């Protein structure tokens, strides 16, 4: 029976109707720098070449906006510490530019003006970078998977920083600009709008996140394990018997009864990765707009375990010690 699996399958050779001319000067555009090798990078097991860098219009614009945003961030932070560089270093992780109250323009730079400027600059920066990504893909006539993956990440950020504050009617719902601004926001968000872990979209996002890391782990480990048999020529080898890629597929099929091929494993990973940010964005946009408190929502929808009469032991129906029951029997406000 086992020999059947290795039966050769006749497959036509893969045709490349229009191979991408990677070295066409028109397609490449202007590049800066010379290829530069850093042999030290070999120690980390990565490629050693740096450069050259394609100088696209969107990329230049993106970097300029980003640097302007960093400048505004440092400037605003320095006004908070009265220009004391030592204090700036000391409070580096605590310095935050807070968003203004309400939706209008901020009253002053200190009361949210810095935050609004920074939000606009960073939004422009990431959108320009998405444009750079799209332009580069289009020059090769590639399909825009990378662009849409990056766009979905931008979607989550924009939901947190812009869309949801717009729906809620105040920029104060957005995170502050700073190194731990989003950390504090996650904490305060959970405190005010109920524990986010009871948000089903958050659950789904975690499923996708852990799932994509698992898929990445499986895929990476499989390719590394069979690289001695040439499986880094993944797609080219899909038609070949007894190649590393073919043996990888057989391995997973025999281990768990199902396998992806070198193309579909990337479909799996791509959709899981995009699923993380898209489901997160849905969870964020529904918080406060449709659902006020996710823990209460969980109680209402049967997610939270209800223990019934806490004054009685569940098994023996004996009263449980007073120090546990006294607070449960108190009326809630």
């Amino acid at each position, binding site marked *: 029976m086992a020999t059947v699996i290795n039966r050769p399958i006749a497959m036509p050779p893969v045709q490349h109707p229009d191979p991408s001319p990677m070295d066409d000067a028109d397609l490449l555009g202007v590049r800066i720098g010379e290829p530069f090798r850093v042999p*030290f990078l070999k*120690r*980390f097991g990565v490629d050693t070449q740096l450069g050259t860098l394609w100088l696209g219009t969107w990329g230049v614009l993106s970097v300029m906006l980003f640097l302007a945003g960093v400048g505004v961030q440092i400037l605003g932070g320095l*006004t*908070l*510490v*009265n220009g*004391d560089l*030592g*204090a700036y*270093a*000391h*409070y580096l992780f*605590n310095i935050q530019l*807070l*968003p203004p*109250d309400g939706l209008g323009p901020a009253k002053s730079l*200190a*009361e*949210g003006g810095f935050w609004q400027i920074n939000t606009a600059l960073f939004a422009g920066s990431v959108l320009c970078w998405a444009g750079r990504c799209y332009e580069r893909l289009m020059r090769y006539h590639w399909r825009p998977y990378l662009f849409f993956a990056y766009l979905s990440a931008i979607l989550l950020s924009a939901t947190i920083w812009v869309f949801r504050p717009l729906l*809620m009617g*105040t920029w*104060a*719902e*957005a995170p*502050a600009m700073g190194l731990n601004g989003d950390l*504090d*926001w996650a*904490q*305060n*968000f959970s*405190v*005010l*709008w109920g524990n986010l872990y009871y948000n089903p979209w958050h659950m789904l996002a975690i499923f996708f996140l852990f799932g994509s890391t698992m898929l990445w782990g499986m895929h990476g480990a499989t390719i590394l394990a069979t690289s001695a048999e040439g499986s880094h020529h993944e797609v080219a080898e899909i038609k070949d018997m007894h190649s590393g890629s073919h043996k990888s597929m057989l391995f997973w099929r025999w281990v768990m009864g199902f396998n992806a091929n070198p193309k579909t494993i990337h479909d799996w990973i791509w959709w899981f990765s995009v699923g993380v940010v898209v489901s997160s964005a849905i969870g964020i946009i529904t918080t406060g707009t449709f659902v006020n408190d996710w823990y209460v929502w969980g109680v209402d929808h049967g997610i939270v375990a209800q223990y019934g009469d806490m004054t009685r032991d569940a098994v023996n129906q004996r009263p449980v010690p007073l120090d546990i029951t006294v*607070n*449960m029997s*108190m009326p*809630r*406000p």
Partner: protein
Amino acid sequence: MNIKRLLGPLVIVCTLALAGVAQPLLDTARAAGPEKPVTGNNSPLGVGHFDRNPADAEKGYGPVDQAAPMDFSTQNANVPKTYVPGKLYNVQVLKQYSYATLLNQMNYYTQSLGVQCTYCHNVANFAYDTPTKKISRTMQIMSNQVASGWIDPVKKDYPNYSVSGAVGCVTCHRGAPRMAVKWNIVPVAYLDYKAKTTKQAGYVVNSMYSASKSLGVNCLFCHNTADFVSLQYYPTNKIAHRMWAMVDKINHQYLPANVKAVTCYTCHQGAKWPQALVTAGLDQTPVEAHASHPAVHENPGAHLASGVAH
């Protein structure tokens, strides 16, 4: 196994270790240098990490310049131009004290703050009012008001939660004329209504962690997990609410408007009960509730505004 392959990870570890060493060094260098005022926090916390107004540095905190000429036009009528040692002049708060008791009290102040007489007095004329002397008057009144208006009622209502000892100068100062400001809290009004935005929730959350760190306790010292909001379960929650209001009062009534520096940490410093309490009789300033003292109630901080930098 090529040992050179460990070089890369080694560089990462060394960089992290260096970064870990650099921050304390940076802090030490900062602490050694002159303390620069920090201000400009745009949050209603007002103070905290960014606690000082640069203008305060020029407002006359610090030892009195003994060589500065005395200007009697700014002094009240009780200040004599020729000072005779051994007599009491211009005593406004400690009126009941005899000369000897007053000296004891003054000695206690110097020990509590770790200063000399010259920190507040011009030794050529002890009756002469200086900015630091005016501040100390306000502080005497404040200390008495805190004891009679806030601490004593708590001790009376919650005897199980009270300890012996009283709040004195040393409870906060602990041997230093100016205290470090740590772990700021929001005004008590923020605790009395539900936060409307995530930003407001952040202020309250930060303050709660400030309070718990200041007292060295966790949330459950005051809160019930089943109902964080309600005050009805634990006495500690109600006591904390009162103390919070007291801190608010101290900051707004007894400290000048631009120095709102008192937090839970100022007294507690990591202990449930402040460790540096004084025994009865040592610092029980017998103030007859000087509620009408002009420096305190009508214009908080007026004593600083009139102070001349010296």
